[in-house]
């Protein structure tokens, strides 16, 4: 009995320390007002003053930062734009990642560890450096334009950097492993004899893929899509480095509120809303994972 309690307690304590407490702090800041001080907001919940502190905090409580978010159309446009970019880049990542995962799962057994290694290898360098190097590739004097010019395919350098195209390229590049790995693991688990059985029962190769392979990798696809969609939604580095002024993403807005405007309460409110938006796909993702585990049992 005691052991069971401890076993359950550990993950809950973990969640409490690493998720709920930070979230409570952010929520608290989002409910306060901006002020030129350190830290730059007021009131502060001073628990050392005990009950009086809590009373003082609640006396000053209002939701003006959240109201502000609805007044300025920058914010909801940024949310929508982020949503759009996240959806499009998730679909694009899936289109690029699925064939790669499929090829890996169909590769001869002795090749698979190497291919898997190649997928994971980019993680060995800093994400920031990799995104910076894309600037070197995509800029007007970058390697890509030089190559295309020297091949005579284009007469004028293409404007890629600082557009949404560059953002998509960056996102697909960065998040590809998160798409490939769950799909690969679903495809790799699949029994090859299922395809033979489908063929034996009258399927062509293509219909066998459509009727057997695809449905069986469904959970991998869903997992991969969430793993891409959720972080891309709040992505800040890629749009700020590769995107242009017209690239509107909520992560970038949040960063600017926080560091440029030093408006911590509004930034926190943005973060709270973003989290609330993301809770839906996160819950769906968890449910999918659970279903996968149950099906395996």
């Amino acid at each position, binding site marked *: 009995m005691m052991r069971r309690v401890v076993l359950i307690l550990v993950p809950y304590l973990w969640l409490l320390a690493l998720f709920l407490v930070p979230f409570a702090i952010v929520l608290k800041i989002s409910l306060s007002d901006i002020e030129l001080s350190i830290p730059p907001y007021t009131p502060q919940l001073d628990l050392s003053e005990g009950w009086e502190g809590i009373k003082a905090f609640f006396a000053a409580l209002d939701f003006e930062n959240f109201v502000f978010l609805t007044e300025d159309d920058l914010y909801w446009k940024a949310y929508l734009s982020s949503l759009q970019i996240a959806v499009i880049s998730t679909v694009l990542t899936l289109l690029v990642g699925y064939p790669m995962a499929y090829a890996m799962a169909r590769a001869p057994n002795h090749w698979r560890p190497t291919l898997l290694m190649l997928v994971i290898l980019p993680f060995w360098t800093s994400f920031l450096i990799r995104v910076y190097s894309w600037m070197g590739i995509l800029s007007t004097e970058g390697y890509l334009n030089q190559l295309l010019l020297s091949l005579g395919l284009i007469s004028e350098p293409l404007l890629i950097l600082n557009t949404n195209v560059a953002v998509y390229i960056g996102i697909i590049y960065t998040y590809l492993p998160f798409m490939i790995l769950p799909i690969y693991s679903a495809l790799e688990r699949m029994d090859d*004899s299922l395809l033979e059985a489908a063929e*034996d029962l*009258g399927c062509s190769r293509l219909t066998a893929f459509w009727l057997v392979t695809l449905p069986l990798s*469904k959970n991998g696809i869903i997992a991969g899509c969430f793993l891409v969609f959720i972080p891309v939604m709040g992505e800040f580095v890629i749009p700020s480095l590769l995107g242009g002024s017209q690239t509107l993403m909520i992560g970038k807005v949040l960063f600017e509120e926080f560091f440029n405007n030093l408006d911590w309460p509004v930034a926190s409110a943005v973060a709270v809303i973003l989290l609330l938006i993301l809770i839906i796909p996160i819950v769906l993702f968890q449910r999918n994972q659970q279903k996968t585990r149950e099906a395996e049992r």
Partner: protein
Amino acid sequence: MPETKFAPWTDPNEKPLIQFRNVTKRFGTFTAIDDQSFDIYAKEFFALLGPSGCGKTTMMRMLAGFETPTEGTILLGGRDIAPIPPNKREVNMMFQSYALFPHLSVRDNIAFGLKRDKLPADRIAARVDEMLKLTRLEKFASRKPHQISGGQRQRVALARSLAKGPKLLLLDEPLGALDAKLRQDTQFELMDIQEKTGTTFVIVTHDQEEAMTVASRVAVMDDGRIVQIATPDEIYEAPNSAYVADFIGDVTLFSGTAMNRAPEAEPIQETAEAGTEAAPEEAENPETETVDTPKAVTDIGVPVEPEAPISGEPDAPEPARAEPAPAAAPAKAARGPQPNRMGLWLHDKLWAKVFGPRTDIVRQLPPPSDAERTLKSAETEPVSAETSRAPGGGITIDWAEGQPPLIALDGPEVKDGQQVQLALRPEKVGISKTKPDAVNALKGKVIDIAYLGNLSTYHVELENGMMIKAQLANTRRISRRDITWEDEVWVSWTGTAGVVLTS
């Protein structure tokens, strides 16, 4: 019995459904199938039996279309099937892993092949219902494969592969994943369904018991070649090589030099029991179990065979003596095992009170088809182990220094001095504490007793160190059996119990 009549392979006018013509399959430098030609007939239950890696699965995959022969042709109903892809063949396969689609319900799994044929929905539904009924799966139709038991999954796989009504159904180790008890039941179910649907089944298995149970004919494979194709009983009783004898069931192999024995001095006398068509299997048990009780021996020995020496007599005659023994002479007219007069007497007087009247049902071997087996005497009666006087003919096998030569009365023609092997099934070997009056009797010591419930197998070490297995049916309760570890015993068998193998 209809099974015994079903033998299209003996009918030269019968057209085989499948013909392998000099089929060779190589993977790189490895030869999986080595120049094989054989036929499979419609409605047959044909088993490919062999150890793993012998090429049996390759053979099956070539039939299904997943592999193409490197050389030679495979004909299905007279047509070369090499250019037909697997999805166009009238051949369906039941996979070893069952390969059920985990995302589809039982019903959809069974309907999968039918839907590919673009049949109207009502016909598909009717056919699926028929299959569900055949395999008794109606209750589970809407479940997913992971929600049903292994045995039910096996039936779904069978139903799915039968749904399209293939000319040929391939079964790849279909019962490998089931536990022993379920496997047995399923074997009979398979036979039942095969009979009901009239489909030709080809089964691949490494389990000889399974092959023997279900198949009408068994092809024993080794190393890319088929060593023997025959009915299960023929393969067991008349293996054509030491490999087959060893692979099918338990066997003790004696290697030695053959010498032809002097033929019969006088023609065999027809004896009173020659025409009797009765051979209760039980007759063997009293023999092997009563020899060690002197009273029984005298009881039996005196009234029945007054001319034969009594067992208790010292220096039992050399088995090699080629004197005719009229009382136990092989009955030429009858084919099946027959009890001799002593066996009948023993049964009617003694065992009938315990076991009831003897049944006259005899499981008979089909007549040996091979020409080289014409020499084989029809007599396969184990009870005649009681006689010390072997009839003439046959061969002796010198197999070890200081051991009496073994006598085999039937078997192929051999030259003097030829190396042969004598294959001996444990159930044909008797075991007793006193020297039995048998054609072949060897002394040894019990090393191990494997108690299997219905049977006990005694591992007896002969004086020269060779191990021989003897099997007894446990018709008595365990406390009453008196042969135990380290006991000095005699193992004995008749002149026709062993099979002489020249290869």
